[in-house]
């Protein structure tokens, strides 16, 4: 059986990639995908621990997280579509109307 810490290392790597993506990219869709990456890294952790401790809570949480991620995707994409309608771009640096 694959030891649990391998999953955790993979999860940490995925999460870090996600964070770097969010911090560095300007394209809204890319940032969005990076957030998905972070969410799924967390999911992986849940699943790994659920397997190790033979508990169902972790698996359950994964479903919650997936549902929320889906809802978030719907809202987020709607925002970006709306942004594109108004500004013809999805570069988040361009969305600075409220800035002083």
């Amino acid at each position: 059986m694959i030891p649990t810490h391998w999953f955790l290392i993979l999860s940490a790597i995925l999460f870090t990639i996600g964070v770097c993506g969010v911090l560095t990219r300007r394209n809204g869709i890319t940032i969005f995908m990076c957030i998905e990456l972070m969410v799924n890294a967390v999911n992986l952790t849940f699943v790994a621990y659920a397997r190790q401790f033979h508990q169902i809570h972790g698996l359950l949480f994964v479903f919650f997280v997936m549902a929320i991620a889906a809802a978030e995707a719907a809202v987020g994409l709607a925002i970006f579509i709306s942004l594109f309608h108004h500004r013809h771009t999805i570069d988040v640096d361009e969305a600075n109307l409220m800035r002083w």
Partner: protein
Amino acid sequence: MLNTLWLIPLLPFAGFLLNGLFGKRLGKGFVTAVALLASLGAAIAGTIAVVQYHAAYPSGERHVDLVYNWIASGSVKADLAFQLDPLSVVMLMVVTWVGFLIHLYSVGYMAHEHGYGRYFAYLNLFLSEMLVLILGSSYLVMFIGWEGVGLCSYLLIGFYYETDYAPAAGKKAFVVNRIGDFGFLIAMFLMFAYFGSVDFAKVSQIAAGGGIEHWLLTAICLLLFLGACGKSAQIPLYVWLPDAMAGPTPVSALIHAATMVTAGVYMVVRSNALYRLAPNAMMVVALIGALTALFAATIGIRQWDIKKVLAYSTVSQLGFMFIGVGVGAFTAGIFHLVTHAFFKACLFLGSGSVIHAMSGEQDMRKMGGLKSKIPITYWTFLIATIAIAGIPPLAGFFSKDEILASALANPYFPQWFNALIWILGTLAAFCTAFYMFRLVYLTFFGSFRGTHEQEHHLHESPWTMTLPLIVLATLSAVGGAILGWPHRHFLAAWLHPIFPEIGGVPEAQYEISPNLEYGLMFVSTAIAALGIWAAYARFYKRGLAADEQFAAKMPAVANGMENKWYVDELYAATIVRPLEGFSQFLWRGIDALIDGLLALLGYVVAAIGDLLRFFQTGNVRNYALMFFLGVIVFVWVLA
């Protein structure tokens, strides 16, 4: 009616509401009907009340109609109540009937003016407030009316609000009156504090009961008189009344001649118990009255505006009334108030008729020779002029003569003071005869000096205007003889109950020996005739030339009179401008400093905000970075 006295002021008030709210929409006919009915209703209701009062109280006690307990707080008690007593009755009859006549006159005079509804709304409101003033049973209720008529006076002086002088005159009247009202208020506070009441009967009862310190009575009387000076245009507060002529002429007749300006006289008579106990205050009243009578009369000699002459004449005649009440001849003061209401209302309405005929011209230099063009106006005006000049047997003669005789026979003051008052009053009476006949000769005699257009338009006024003139002229002719024939004095007998007997104080209606009285009658008739002759000699043939000659001979005196002895300028230099300067200092200095301090607080907060906003880049990724760093630090610390 006696138990619904409040209805009398309420009727014109209803007229005010109707005309004020709906007058513009419902048209002139409606306004006229409402205004006339309201004032006539008040007059009839008042008359019924008087008849019932006389039947119920044949010996002239006081009837009080309590509406409700207005203020009841500890020892301070004041009711909203109306009263009828012989004095209120006299005032009520004068105010309502003269008021109605002037309403009627206004229908003709204001027919072509803008703001017809507004005018009658104000006029009705004035009548209502004046009735509150004279029917109130305490100083407090009187004060309501006092302020109310002040407001109406302000509104009606500034009636032609598009001009620049009328609103200024209104403001001046209001501000000057505030100074007087301040005195009235303090006097009321003193009464509350020391007597515990402001009810007329209670106050005079307490005062007459003795044990009240002399300084307190004197202070109350002088403060009340300060109020009277404001409202009744006496030195030093008379300056507003001549300016008040900016209002429509019927207003000058009703408010600034016949009724409102006599409120001060009424108040002093109302407080006769207080005044009789404070002879020092009475001396002040008499002296101020005498000085005002003479001073205003000299200004009236050299005015060109027909209404200005009458305005100064009013100030002067009010001075006469104050001589009367000041020397303790309260009856004579009220008598002159009544006759003055007749002849001065007639004169003002007559001048209004002249102005109407002259298409709005008020300058006597442009008039002349109107005698045959407007005969009714001329004859009524002439009768009223003879009445004011003091020729027997017209009204003014009896009242003025009684005042001067009382001044000489007065038992309160030293002889030299009596003589001084009498001399001042007699000089003023001479001036009165002179300037009034100057006015008549310049206006009605000689040749016409106006433009051709004005001459073409000359016309007698409609019946709504001439009828009040005729009625008032008749009253000016016979009113004095009916009301106050010497030694068979109707008014004196009628007013007798309002003067309480006070121990150690002379009677309010003291005897004048017949020899003195008839002798003085001869003297004052001679003085009046002399004044008329002087005016005749100067102005009958030569007209304006006589005035020019006078100016050439004594330029300093003529200029002084023409410029009202520079009193307005004096006040401007000593009071108005320093006050304005001080206000400017407060505004630009103190106020700016306070504002600056507060603004500084605001600037500090804004500056801090300016610094902090650099952290709010608006860049989501920056926030996210901070967020992650925060999480890392958080986990680091926890671990």
